[in-house]
């Protein structure tokens, strides 16, 4: 199957997942977006411009760092870290935001909207809007505004308007609902920069493609460092854009791909976001995908200490990867993520975002089963500065 992997199909389906489950108003704009995207990606100028921005603005390629301290700590396989935390704005989200702002310009849109959870995508979108001179409105749940207050200020400083969302669980999914409603209403002049590999086609494909630079670089870098591919790649999964980004170059290989979801207080409680572990097929925010929901198809109120993973759905391509066993998915709790944050900080001098700390935490389960001559790569999708208040409260020093 993986040798022929060619999803999505022309209708945006990843197997039975994905699609365009949206109100009629959005169908034409989604088609325009898709056509413009296919046209642009064929143009050398577009690729050149994006490559130049990635290099000179974001600071790509990001390093692949050998994690000496962490490797010694586990005393098993060698561990490398893909350093998306070193991207301009502090996370991988900028890769997608830059690509999409070029699309928005080509589409002639003057107003940009986005949803954000942790604030990293909001900051990335505010950043590219500042650079390209477009008006920017970011929807953010009230709970997230509280726990990611530094990022709220960053967005404002960058000239964006942050619109608080008070509906539902007041987190990422509600912010995305409001962004979609805004788009339905203002579709003429507005482009919606979705922050993850979620939503209706063509978004999961477009965001994946812009994020796949992570995996392309990783593949080159590990071959230079070790003259071979790694045995494992580990990434956190909320919507799943950093994971798809690093996985995508490796899906036709023997590399084991591992996605780590947020188990919140634990998967035996009802306070978690382990969508692929415990969800079932649903239709949500324009896509068919695994979804945390009750028996009546009402979307669950979920929980993670990490605002960026606090989402009841997941990208439809991950749903396909799970069913086809192209990747394996596990989950770790809030507490495990906090301990992993401390571990990476002390062992490597790198403070990861709480999202990325979930990937690091999974090493506790993975490493004992690895051999010394094996190689593990962990995607550090973002840096932890935005989470310092939460981490401080938890660690208490």
């Amino acid at each position, binding site marked *: 199957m993986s040798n022929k992997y060619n999803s999505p199909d022309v209708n945006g389906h990843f197997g039975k997942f994905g699609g365009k489950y949206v109100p009629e108003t959005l169908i034409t704009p989604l088609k325009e977006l898709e056509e413009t995207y296919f046209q642009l990606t064929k143009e050398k100028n577009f690729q050149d411009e994006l490559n130049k921005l990635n290099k000179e603005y974001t600071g790509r390629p990001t390093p692949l760092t050998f994690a000496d301290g962490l490797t010694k700590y586990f005393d098993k396989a060698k561990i490398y870290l893909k350093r998306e935390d070193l991207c301009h704005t502090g996370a991988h989200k900028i890769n997608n935001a830059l690509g999409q702002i070029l699309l928005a310009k080509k589409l002639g849109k003057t107003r940009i909207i986005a949803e954000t959870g942790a604030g990293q995508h909001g900051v990335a979108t505010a950043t590219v809007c500042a650079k390209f001179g477009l008006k920017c409105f970011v929807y953010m749940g009230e709970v997230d505004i509280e726990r990611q207050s530094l990022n709220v200020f960053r967005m404002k400083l960058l000239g964006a308007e942050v619109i608080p969302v008070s509906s539902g669980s007041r987190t990422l999914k509600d912010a995305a609902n409001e962004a979609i409603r805004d788009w339905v209403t203002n579709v003429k002049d507005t482009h919606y920069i979705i922050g993850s590999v979620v939503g209706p086609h063509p978004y999961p494909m477009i965001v994946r493609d812009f994020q796949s630079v992570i995996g392309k670089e990783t593949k080159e870098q590990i071959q230079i460092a070790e003259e071979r591919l790694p045995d494992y790649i580990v990434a956190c999964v909320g919507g799943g854009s950093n994971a798809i980004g690093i996985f995508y170059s490796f899906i036709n290989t023997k590399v084991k791909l591992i996605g780590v979801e947020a188990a919140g207080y634990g998967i035996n409680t009802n306070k978690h976001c382990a969508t692929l572990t415990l969800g079932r097929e649903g239709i949500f925010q324009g896509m068919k995908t695994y979804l945390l929901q009750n028996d009546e198809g009402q*979307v669950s109120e979920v929980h993670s200490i990490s605002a960026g993973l606090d989402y009841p759905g997941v990208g439809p391509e991950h749903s396909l990867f799970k069913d086809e066993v192209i990747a394996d998915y596990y989950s770790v709790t809030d507490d495990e993520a906090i301990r992993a944050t401390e571990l990476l900080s002390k062992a490597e001098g790198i403070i990861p975002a709480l999202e990325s700390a979930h990937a690091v935490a999974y090493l506790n389960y993975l490493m004992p089963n690895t051999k010394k001559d094996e190689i593990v790569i962990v995607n550090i999708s973002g840096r932890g500065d935005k989470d310092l208040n939460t981490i401080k409260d938890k660690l208490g020093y």
Partner: protein
Amino acid sequence: MTTIANYISGKNNKNEKVLSVFLTSGFPDKNNFVELALRALEAGADMLEIGFPFSDPLADGPIIQHSSQIALENGINITKTFNFIKEIRSRTDKPLILMGYANPVLSYGIEKFAENAKSLGVNGVIIPDIPIEEYENFYNHLFDEVNTILLVTPTTSNDRIKLIDEKSSGFIYCVSVSGTTGITNQDKITSIEFVKRTRSIVKKNKMLVGFGISSVKDAQSFAPYCDGIIVGSAVIKSLMNDSSDYVKTLDLIKKLKQALV
């Protein structure tokens, strides 16, 4: 039983436009909902669209979001909505339509939903997050006797309107403005131009206009260019503030219908 299209034709032949009223299932009070529905029909509603709630109603503005939330808190689901339908159906022959989002239906079971809708006398369904792209993936032959009503919006191209007209049954739901339900800041002239354009393309189906129609004046301005109108948010909003036995709301429905005769 009269199909929706025949019913609309019948009214149109008497120089009347139909009034379709949207009610959120079990809102505002689940114990009086059947009574409310029947009184809405008595007051002048020609047909009812009964919305079963969803936690994440993407196409809805704040008013219907709020009523959905209350309905969920009242414990309303598809099963309870079918129970309401059963009681309402036993006391009226007017068309009854179910409206709601795809996920609760998927969760309930698409086949079971279609079978129950058919056996309880539901005449049509409107699921706004199933556009024609996903039509075949969702609706099946069991919906042959339950109309699947599709929407057109101002962003829908002429060619696409033709395709939607082919697929839709019951009527075409013409959304007069790009936006969520209850939108008020619309440019009326542009909306009417769009409704006229759509009317000239739609051949197979009757066409009802909805979204952003909140007053008798709105109803009058759209009525000449369609076969009927749909009022949702204005009714729900009225119900929110209507402590006096729904008198204000029923009066609104009565006046809206009078404007269409």
